[in-house]
């Protein structure tokens, strides 16, 4: 009976089920490889990556993100596809995957394919299925666009190696930041089995780079590097622990990216936290900000957080928070400071720091020029001076600057907690429309208010 139902499933139904199942995977980047077409088939790849659309949640759609199958022998508690869930199951055939990818790509809907999978029979078997689909795409259809696949922990290293030569990016999900969390929520996975393929991919990337240096025609192995992702807020780790894990992944495993995904409650389970306020989006946002600081701004996790202060400030971004605790290093003289010092100024990003360096070669910079360059002066003004002068007479005082920085509304991709109202109480002393006018003051004088 069940087979009959499945046999009738159209590509549309399968796409629905397998997209639904894949949407919680975060990585949707198509960056890291520059490759032009060799004249056969279709496709190329651009190092900057290209976003092709944005879904209703504001996340970019650049790859056809699907699972090969959502059947799974594992029972991870946070996952919608776990064995014990009663959800509709479907599997693509390699031909269907190839056909969808090619036809979407021709119409410029997507930049390539992101293929992950639930585990069917065993990890090696699943990886072999993925390999067949990718092989078809690369050698029958001569698809030269971007392909990202998941390496499944526990699969035979040989399959991982074979697949690595066909794809641009591979990723192994770390799932949860610590070993304890993993054993609680993903009993079928261990830290060791996750790190093993990660190490294998790292080593092969390095050796393939060396080979290419000697012999140009050597096949590149995972040229866009590997990435990973962790679920945030399902287990009680602090931000400091998470950042330290991410830093370890960047340094020891040379990962290109670590993605953080705010935990979304899809299963009812006693081991999962209840999140009445929705997924922890602000926390996820702060982690990404800090992640950028690690990768592009020369910060270390230990500078941003510590055992004593294990979590990020809700009101301030991590960089401003750091700057406020290190006021002795400010103000920075824009016309003389090193690139590294400029990067640490709140309101100055990588691009504006580079522009400052380039622009001050030709002439001395003042605040007007900085504004043109793209420095966010309302945040930076407490930390910089131009030609020995600050923009306004400013106290270099932590409380004073904090107060002012909090008033500058931070641009968040969502409203802070989703609410714009609050409960009013009789004892609140709130002025609802800001300043009082003259009439009101007069009324107050005569005791009429």
């Amino acid at each position, binding site marked *: 009976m069940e087979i009959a139902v499945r046999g009738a499933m159209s*590509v*549309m139904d399968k*796409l*629905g089920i397998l*997209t639904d199942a*894949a*949407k*919680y995977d975060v990585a949707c980047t198509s960056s890291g490889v520059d490759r*032009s*077409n060799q*004249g*056969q*088939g*279709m*496709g*190329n790849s*651009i190092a*900057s990556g*290209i*976003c*092709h*659309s*944005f*879904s*209703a*949640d*504001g*996340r*970019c*759609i*650049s790859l*056809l*993100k699907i699972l090969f199958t959502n059947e799974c022998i594992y029972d991870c508690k946070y996952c919608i596809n776990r064995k014990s869930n009663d959800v509709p199951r479907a599997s693509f055939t390699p031909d269907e995957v190839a056909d*969808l990818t090619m*036809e*979407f790509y*021709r*119409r*410029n*809907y997507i*930049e390539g394919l992101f293929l992950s999978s639930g585990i069917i029979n065993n990890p090696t078997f699943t990886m072999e299925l993925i390999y067949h689909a990718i092989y078809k795409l690369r050698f029958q259809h001569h698809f030269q666009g971007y392909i990202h696949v998941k390496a499944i922990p526990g699969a035979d290293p040989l399959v991982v190696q074979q697949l690595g030569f066909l794809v641009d990016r591979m990723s192994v999900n770390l799932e949860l930041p610590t070993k304890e969390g993993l054993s609680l929520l993903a009993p079928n996975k261990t830290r060791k089995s996750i790190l093993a393929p990660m190490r294998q991919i790292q080593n092969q990337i390095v050796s393939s780079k060396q080979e290419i240096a000697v012999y140009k025609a050597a096949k590149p192995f995972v040229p866009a590097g590997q990435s990973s992702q962790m679920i945030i807020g399902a287990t009680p780790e602090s931000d400091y622990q998470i950042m330290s894990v991410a830093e370890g992944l960047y340094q020891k495993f040379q990962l290109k990216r670590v993605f953080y995904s*705010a935990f*979304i*409650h899809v299963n009812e389970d006693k081991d999962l936290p209840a999140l009445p306020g*929705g*997924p922890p*989006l602000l926390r996820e946002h702060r982690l990404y900000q800090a992640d950028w600081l690690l990768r592009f701004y020369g910060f270390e996790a230990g500078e941003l957080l510590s055992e004593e202060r294990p979590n990020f400030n809700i009101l301030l971004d991590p960089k401003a928070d750091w700057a406020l605790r290190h006021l002795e290093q400010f103000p920075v003289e824009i016309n003389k400071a090193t690139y590294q010092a400029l990067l640490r100024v709140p309101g100055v990003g990588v691009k504006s720091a580079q*522009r400052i*360096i*380039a*622009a001050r*070669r*030709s*002439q001395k*910079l003042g605040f007007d*020029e900085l504004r*043109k*360059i793209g420095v966010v002066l309302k945040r930076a003004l407490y930390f910089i001076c131009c030609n020995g002068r600050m923009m306004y007479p400013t106290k270099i005082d932590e409380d004073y600057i904090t107060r002012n920085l909090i008033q500058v509304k931070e641009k968040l*991709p*969502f409203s802070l907690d989703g609410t714009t109202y609050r409960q009013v109480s009789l004892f609140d002393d709130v002025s609802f429309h800001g300043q009082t006018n003259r009439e009101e003051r007069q009324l107050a004088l005569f005791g009429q208010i």
Partner: protein
Amino acid sequence: MNKVLICEDTLIGIFTGIYVAYEKKMDHSLIQLQLQNHEELLLFSEYENVTADEEKAIKVIRTLKKTFGDDVYQWICYALATTDTLKADAVYHGIVCGLSMKQKQDFMGNLANPYIHTIFKLSRMASNETHHWLGFLRFQQLENGILFSRIGAKSNILTFVAPHFQDRFPNENFMILDEVRNLCVVHPARKQWVLVSGDLIAKEMVEKLSGSEEDYQSLFRYFCDKIAIKERVNLKLQQQMLPLRYQEYMVEFQ
């Protein structure tokens, strides 16, 4: 007496204008470049029309590439693709400033100069838009197998978009029509793309879609709908990343 040179709004026209301005051997601050149909009348000025001359323009282009490098030339081309009316003057005075710089390769870095800053701003605008169209442009397969796409670009970015798609789809026949300018990129399979202007495209031909086209469109629409996480829905963010002016050309929003 101030001099105002009026040039055509094309790459060749503006570069010819710059050539003519240098030919005058006047103080550069007395010369202004304006675009045809966007003239601004100034007192005490002499007006002169410049006819586009390919030879002169090529000389300017050669000098630009030689002194500043290909990258800067590319930036300038992007700036001139915008619809800003002050672009010709900014490029002209920017070049004057650039030629007096010691390190000429640092041209785009000299953002403290107002003209170079304008070039920078405009060219960033056009190159960002180009990058957006690379992703947001949608092809439809017509009955005769040709991939056809319609775009409505703010800047004239068709020539920046075309090489990317030629490289991506070398074996496809495709066309990209800029509705605003009535320009069209035509790429016959395995050949060099060409730019065609004017009303060459028959409406009836473009409306006849291939049999499977509708299926793939609805598949993609369904995919876009399914990929969104309901708990995170944020339409404001979506619109910020993907402004409405692009959405009207995209199948998933129709």
